[in-house]
């Protein structure tokens, strides 16, 4: 987890985390060159797995240029040209987190090219939906693009769903992800509301571990919240462990 300390790896190991997957994402600033991404991909495929392994955690990752840095299509394509050099690294799961940020034409074009790349290498896809006021429109644009690309919907997970976008994603046969935050976005209590409303199938939750205020233990805290609401141990296990395992087992490199 490039944005977290080694102590965070230790903390999640202490609460029983067996594996994690880290998407390629924004560094908190725009990288100045494609070479910056080359170094970043090395970090994701070499350094972070070694750091996690010290605590018995398997580290997996997804590769892409994130939508926040995809507004310049020439630059984005230069970065994407690096991905084939890394796609066969042993901890790479697929292409992600691709998607949209401000729902622009350029972001959408690069999103579609990433989908083509995933199809070319036959890899699953992890998708980021925009936050806040941009989420509804971005989710609809992404769903339309995926329909046009004729992807295998069972191998695509669309992340950051909330109450208004979860049914759009699930009803179309895609997997849905809920990223939990301590503030500003989806909380554990609301994630459970979404599970209770839209069901426990084809959905997972993950702890936001980014540069903002985020909490690597968010999923564990959500599991405790589920217990408070009288969900069975089996249901909790399904949502926080079995569902992610089912989806990720479609990735050739994934194993526990």
């Amino acid at each position, binding site marked *: 987890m490039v944005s977290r300390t080694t102590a965070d790896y230790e903390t999640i190991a202490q609460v029983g985390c067996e594996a994690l997957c880290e998407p390629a994402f924004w560094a908190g600033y725009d990288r100045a060159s494609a070479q910056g991404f080359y170094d970043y991909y090395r970090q994701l495929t070499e350094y972070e797995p070694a750091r996690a392994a010290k605590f018995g955690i398997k580290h997996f990752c997804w590769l892409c240029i994130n939508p*926040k840095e995809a*507004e310049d299509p020439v630059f984005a394509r230069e970065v994407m040209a690096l991905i084939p050099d890394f796609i066969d690294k042993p901890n790479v799961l697929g292409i992600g987190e691709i998607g949209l*940020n*401000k*729902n*622009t*034409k*350029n*972001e*959408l074009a690069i999103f579609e090219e990433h989908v083509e790349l995933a199809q070319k290498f036959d890899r699953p896809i992890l998708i980021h939906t*925009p*936050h*806040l*006021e*941009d*989420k*509804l*429109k971005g989710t*609809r*644009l992404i769903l339309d693009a995926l329909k046009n690309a004729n992807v295998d919907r069972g191998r695509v997970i669309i992340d950051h769903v*909330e*109450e*208004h976008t979860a049914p759009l994603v699930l009803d179309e046969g895609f997997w849905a992800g809920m990223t939990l935050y301590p503030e500003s976005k989806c909380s554990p*209590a*609301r994630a459970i*509301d979404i599970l*209770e*409303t839209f069901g426990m199938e084809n959905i997972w939750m993950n702890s936001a571990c980014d540069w903002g205020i985020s909490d690597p233990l968010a999923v564990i805290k959500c599991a405790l919240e589920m217990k*408070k*609401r*009288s969900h069975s141990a089996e249901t909790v296990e399904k949502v926080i462990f079995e569902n992610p395992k089912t989806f990720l087992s479609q990735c050739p490199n994934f194993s526990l």
Partner: protein
Amino acid sequence: MPTKKEIQDLYFMDSRFKLLEIASFLDRVDRHDGQADFRHPAFMKALEAMQNPPTGTSRAQAVHLAFSDHSTEPAEAADIQFAYGACQKEVEA
């Protein structure tokens, strides 16, 4: 599954706390100088949506929809990288 009362036992006090935070935030905006921007009418619209959600829409969904950009065409370009939390175009429409 918990009963309504059990849900209240779990979440009433926390939600009461958060409701007062909202009330105090609105008082704070009222009390201070200058002009509030588009986020204020969007917030008030979302509060109204929460109290009177359309049929078939949950309160949380109604709040999301009140803050959302409902346009359908991709934007020509991005002039900012972040999100405000409310859509200026929708407020001004």
